[in-house]
Each structure stands twice: as structure tokens, then as C-alpha cells.
């Protein structure tokens, strides 16, 4: 439906089952793209809480599943905190499949959520450096490659509903995602002349692995049962349900297809109407 045959895509943070990255990589592969999926891998992720870090084996499984379904995928370890590794991931895509046409900067930290008075610099830095600086590295090195190829390209950054409003107890996360919106707009201006479109997607709550952790964390913080917390959330969403990874995956496929040739610099809410600006 989106005619991505022959395109090469790189999706960061795509090494966890149930995650947005996995869903996007699988959808792009279904549409004909060859995908390089990256994640931090347990070895490099030792600085973070183990339950939030995928293992290399999990990423390999996702790549194998894409291949079993008839697609083409290559797993690659990449810590987006390290610019050289991001550049290396772009090189991996080019070495493996010959080019880079689609870059999805998805890797992010959706935990380390603390109120401002108790927020320590190391946590602030970790969230900002992964969620914002990591996206900057991804844009920079993908755009450099796309400019060299001379055929344009599409870059999609995964922002959040938290890019459009504040959330008490999540200052670092909210700040990083607001930053992604500004970065997206600026990159769209800088790379428009090279026919590289840059957009972001702003999901509301999706019960990924990280999303499940957030539900547990925020319901406990609010003294609610998780069921009550989820019911309250659903009642705030005009379409009456939380987001699905498939909602984000189909939007990503659309944005990087030739059905969106004039859409750039946008930060698209995919939130069942919960956000409208």
C-alpha cells in the first residue's frame, strides 16, 4: 500500500518485542523496505535498569521474524548516546543494502520519571541525551548520507504526546520530547532543499513494555489501581482507547511514502484525539 520496495530504512530502538520500533520495522518490511534495526543491547546497556534494556538476542529474534515473514532485516547494536555508533549504524545500512532512504529515530527512555525537586542531574542527562541528543545524532548522520546520495529521503522522529503538554513528574521526558519537536522543525528547514523530509509522530499512551512500566509507576504514584488508572486514561481519549503500536507503524509508513511528498516539518498527533495541536 505504501510502495516502499527497494527503500532502505534504519529504525533505532527496534530491539524490544511489543515496542514501537519493532512495529515500525515490521510494517516497513511488509511494505517492501529493507530494514536495519538497532538497539543498545544488554552489554552496552549495563548503565540502565536491566528490565528496560533489550538483549541482543531479543533484537536478533525480531530480525529473524521479519525474515521469516519474507522481509529483509539486519540487526545491529547501536548506543545512540555515542555519535560514532550512530554514524556506524548508518554505515551498516549502506554497507549492507547500498543506501539509506528512511531514518526513524525511535530510541528513547520512557522511564526515570521523577518530580523536579527530586530529579538528579544524572537522570536528567540520561533522558535528554538519549531522547534528544540521540535524535540529533540520528538526523545528522542520516541527512549527511542522504545528501551524499542526492535522492532525498525521509526522516521520522518519535516524539510523544509529552511534546505537546506537560506531565507532572516527568520533567526530563517532557523536555526532551518538546525538544524533538523543535529539532524536527529546524531539520525540515535545513534539509528541505535536499528533498529530505523531516517529521515527527506524537503518540499518546501505547502499552509497550515501557508503557506497561509507566502504567504501574503512575498508578502507584497516584494511589490508584492500575485498572482505575487505565479507565481514567481511556475516558480522556475521545476515541476511547489507548494507542496501538500499529497506529504508529501505519503513520510512519505513510509519512515516509510517496503519499506524503509535501509533508515536512510536521509533528503529527496519533492520539485518538487526546491531543489536537
Amino acid at each position, binding site marked *: 500500500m505504501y510502495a516502499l520496495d527497494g527503500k532502505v530504512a534504519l529504525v533505532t530502538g527496534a530491539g524490544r518485542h511489543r515496542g514501537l520500533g519493532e512495529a515500525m520495522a515490521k510494517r516497513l518490511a511488509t511494505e517492501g523496505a529493507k530494514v536495519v534495526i538497532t538497539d543498545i543491547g544488554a552489554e552496552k546497556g549495563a548503565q540502565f535498569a536491566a528490565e528496560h534494556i533489550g538483549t541482543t538476542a531479543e533484537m536478533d529474534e525480531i530480525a529473524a521474524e521479519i525474515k521469516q515473514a519474507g522481509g529483509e532485516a539486519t540487526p545491529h547494536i547501536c548506543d545512540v548516546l555515542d555519535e560514532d555508533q550512530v554514524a556506524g549504524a548508518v554505515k551498516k545500512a549502506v554497507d549492507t543494502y547500498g543506501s539509506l532512504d528512511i531514518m526513524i529515530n525511535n530510541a528513547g527512555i520512557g522511564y526515570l520519571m521523577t518530580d523536579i525537586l527530586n530529579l538528579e542531574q544524572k537522570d536528567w542527562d540520561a533522558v535528554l541525551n538519549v531522547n534528544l541528543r540521540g535524535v540529533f545524532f540520528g538526523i545528522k548522520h542520516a541527512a549527511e548520507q542522504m545528501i551524499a546520495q542526492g535522492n532525498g529521503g525521509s526522516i521520522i522522529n518519535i516524539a510523544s504526546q509529552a511534546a505537546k503538554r506537560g506531565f507532572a513528574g516527568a520533567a526530563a521526558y517532557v523536555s526532551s520530547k518538546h525538544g524533538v519537536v523543535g529539532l524536527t522543525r529546524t531539520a525540515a*528547514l535545513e534539509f528541505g532543499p535536499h528533498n529530505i523530509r523531516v517529521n515527527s509522530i506524537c503518540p499518546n499512551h501505547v502499552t509497550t513494555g515501557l508503557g506497561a512500566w509507566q502504567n504501574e509507576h503512575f498508578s502507584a504514584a497516584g494511589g490508584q489501581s492500575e485498572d482505575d488508572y487505565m479507565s481514567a486514561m481511556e475516558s480522556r481519549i475521545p*476515541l476511547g482507547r489507548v494507542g496501538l503500536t500499529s*497506529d504508529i507503524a501505519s503513520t510512519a509508513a505513510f509519512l515516509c511514502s510517496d503519499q506524503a511528498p509535501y509533508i515536512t516539518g510536521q509533528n503529527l*498527533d496519533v492520539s485518538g*484525539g487526546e491531543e489536537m495541536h
Partner: protein
Amino acid sequence: MSDRHRGKTAVVTGGANGIGRGIVERLHADGANVVIADIDMSAAASLADTLGANALAIETDVRDEAALTSCVTQAVEQFGDLGIMVNNAGYIMFSPIVETAADDWRRMMDVNINGIFLGTKVGAQQMIAQGKGGIIVNASSGGGRKGVPNFAHYCATKAAIIMMSQAAAGELAPHRIRVNCYTPGHVETPMMSGLLDKIAGAQDMSRDDAYQALKDEVPWGRWGKVEDVAAAVSWLACDDAEYITGQCIAMNGGQLPW
């Protein structure tokens, strides 16, 4: 194209020319049965003839609620349940505020915002009665997000459409009806072509220079095309966008990146 709208009935107001025509052609190419609702019946009929059996032209003045209701009724009789309502009809006029006659202001409100309200209302009534949800897409504009000198009335209507659509999205979500807007920048249409001389005159430049100046505002380096808008409308109306409501989708080459 695709068959993603096969079997659906789509009504497009102002569907005979310009962006509306592009939307009609795209939805038709994606499998929909299309109703071209327009005051320009000769252009509407000619387009319907070109498209063939699953297209119908109905003379419709969007200022007239009864005419819109009749249009939707005929659409349903001809093709079955209404799935997609595109409220596209509208016009633009170069008119400095101090020179704008009150009647000209009122006429623009009547067509550009009242007409879209009525289309939203009539479309939603039909979709609620059917009980299967539906898609409403309304024509806004970059001019609805940023005021443009000499187009105060147009910008006012296009901003109003965004808020009306957001309210409608919240109100109609329990009926599984999604409501979104599109907000193009400058699009190559007969309507914009007609405006260029006036824009050029106001800035004391040639028509070609005015065209180029507007193009230079766009990071993507070209004017918009009706196909840009039509592709996004078709996508918004498909199941892949089933969680998207209350949004303005801009296809403006990064001109208003916000």
C-alpha cells in the same frame, strides 16, 4: 493507487474544480464511489462523465442545509452508506480590511465556515444513523494558522474551521466518526492562479515574480499540488489512520512548520 476505499461512498463538496477535484479523482482511484457536490454543475457533470459509473454529480450550494441533506440522501440512495464526507467547498478573495464590504465578509463566512459546519452536521447525522462510524475531512488552510495581510476574512474562516473540527472530533468520537482538517499552503489551482495578479499588484511586482516569491517561502522549493492534498485526504480516510482525529494535517513543504 489502491482499493482501500472500495465500496465506500464519498461526498466531496466543491468537488468539481481545484483541490476538490483532485480529492474526487484520488478517492475514485482508490476505489470509492464519489459524489461531486458543486454549484458548478457543468464542471461537476463533466468530471462525473469522465470518471464513469461510480461517480455522480449533484448541484449543491453548501450554504443551503436542505440542499446538502438532499445531496447526502441521493448519495446514499445511489451508492449505499456514506463513509467519507469531505467538506472542501470554499473560496478566497483578495480584500484589504478597509475596503471589504460587510456583505462580502458575510458571504465568505456563509460559504467557507457555515458551509463546512452544515456539511459536518449533515454528514454526521447520516453517519450516526448508519451506526458504523465514518470520516469527515474539512478544508482549512495555512491561512487558518497564520494571518495573511489582505485575506483577513479568509483566514478567519479557515481558523474557525479548525476549532469547529476539533470540537466535532470530540463530540463525534463516541459514534466512531473521525474529524480532521487539511491545511495546505499555496497550491497550484485555478483559484490561486486567479489571485496571483492581485497579489502581484499589491506588492508592485510582476505575476511571475509574485509566483516565484511565494515559491521561495517554501523550504521544499515548489508550490503545492492538488495531488499532495488528495493523497493525504485519502490516507486520513483509510483504516491506517483510525486513531487520528481532531488533527490538522499540513502539506505545505515545510512552509509553516508548526
